[in-house]
């Protein structure tokens, strides 16, 4: 029965990814339209075309290379050699438990305790752990962390999260472009728009409002989704190991590892892909990419 709901979850993920793409396309279309109205009706079409081409290209590029991008952002190196034999074994074991191909294994040169998975689908996936993690966790705890990461891969979470991140970035870029062009436009011959009357003013206000709020709202939604995914990955990981205690004890060690603050600078862009937030002390809990560790431990212990 678990297995059935797990496959349902995966297809739900795929469906949500598609819906999300369509949704953001709509946002971009609306945005382009509003921009077009502000400057001139003729340029609406131009903005639409450019917007579509740009967004498709950008999203495709990020999605296709999500593994390379994530790895290079943390200076990861391949986990080769006898000192990483156990790590490689653990990854293979979990891949067998999940009935999936074994991802490539990498190591991050960081004393912090963390791990992430990346890649557009299970055949092109990578899993990366910190040197600190290998040193501190025992075999069962390591297995639990790897199981959590492999669940992200199985769930097509990586695809989903990467797409969401790319789109959020895109909305921000478009807003920035719009606001800047307004600024320059008002300096050099804004008379064109003014002559069209009050109708354009309404769109102008709307446009500015969208440009300021949209990135913010989209970011909050993205973070809420990211937190939900982490809970699901915890559950899925336990489904692989059938041993929740392993993850509980791993999370405890990770938590105490971060108690003094992260020792290496975390990259905000790839933060959602990690097992625990590499950037501590965010402004508000709304901005957390991961649910609080204590919450996660509580849920695991109830399994």
């Amino acid at each position, binding site marked *: 029965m*678990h*297995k*059935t709901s797990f496959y349902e979850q995966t297809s739900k993920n795929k469906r949500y990814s598609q819906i999300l793409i369509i949704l953001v396309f709509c946002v971009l279309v609306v945005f382009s339209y509003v921009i077009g109205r502000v400057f001139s009706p003729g340029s609406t079409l131009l903005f639409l075309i450019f917007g579509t081409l740009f967004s498709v290209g950008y999203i495709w590029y990020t999605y296709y290379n999500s593994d390379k991008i994530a790895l290079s952002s943390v200076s990861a190196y391949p986990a080769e050699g*006898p*000192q*990483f*034999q*156990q*790590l490689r*074994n*653990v990854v*293979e*074991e*979990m891949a*067998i*438990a*999940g*009935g999936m191909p074994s991802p490539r294994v990498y190591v991050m040169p960081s004393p912090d305790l963390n791990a992430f998975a990346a890649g557009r689908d299970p055949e092109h996936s990578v899993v990366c752990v910190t040197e600190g993690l*290998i*040193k*501190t*966790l*025992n*075999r*069962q705890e*390591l297995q639990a962390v790897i199981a959590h990461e492999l669940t992200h891969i199985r769930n097509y979470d990586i695809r989903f999260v990467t797409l969401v991140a790319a789109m959020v970035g895109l909305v921000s870029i478009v807003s920035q472009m719009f606001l800047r062009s307004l600024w320059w436009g008002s300096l050099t011959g804004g008379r064109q728009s003014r002559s069209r009357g009050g109708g354009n003013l309404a769109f102008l206000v709307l446009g500015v409002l969208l440009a300021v709020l949209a990135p913010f709202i989209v970011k909050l939604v993205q973070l809420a989704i990211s937190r939900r995914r982490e809970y699901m990955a915890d559950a899925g990981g336990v489904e*692989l190991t*059938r*041993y929740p205690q392993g993850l509980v004890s791993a999370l405890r060690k990770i938590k105490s590892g971060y108690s003094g603050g992260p020792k290496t600078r975390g990259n905000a862009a790839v933060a959602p892909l990690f097992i625990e937030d590499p950037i501590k002390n965010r402004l508000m809990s709304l901005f957390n990419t991961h649910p609080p560790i204590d919450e996660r431990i509580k849920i695991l212990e109830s399994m």
Partner: protein
Amino acid sequence: MFWILIVLVLMAFLVVMFLYNRLITLRARVENAWSQIDVQLKRRYNLIPNLVDTVKGYMEHERQTLESVTQARAALANAEGVKETAEANNMLTSALKSLFAVSENYPDLKANQNFLNLQEQLTTTENKIAYARQFYNDSVMTYNIACQKIPTNFVAALFNFKEKEYFEVVGESERSVPKVDFSGGNSQTAKDNA
């Protein structure tokens, strides 16, 4: 009127095709999962003579334990069918567990790098067998449920899809998959086992 009949027949055909394809996929998954178990069993089979040789010199007085490992290995090689293989596999796992438990009393052996490598290799192979078994059973469950559920059961009966056996021993006390760590405890970190 005639057209309605055609449409109905077409729809029925599509439904049957869909259900049939689903059964095929699930059955293939089960068979693939079984072959994965097989791969790991063979791997362990090949590792054991090496282990016995390494250990023999150090554990002179543990001939009984070594014997039971060798015998269990041979029994597993001769096992046929899912149930027999499951039984034989369990015997070999316990024999190996005893062997590694006893090795705790031989510090010289524990310092031997060859032995440590074998220990990790056998640990990972045991785990892989356990997880392959887990995945196999999960696949069997999904497949069997599909064979029983309406309306898939009609298609299953029509095309002779048989239910598969679980990889388990009757009356097994450990309901969960046995976790193996021959290195003697949870306290050792990955670095120690390098």
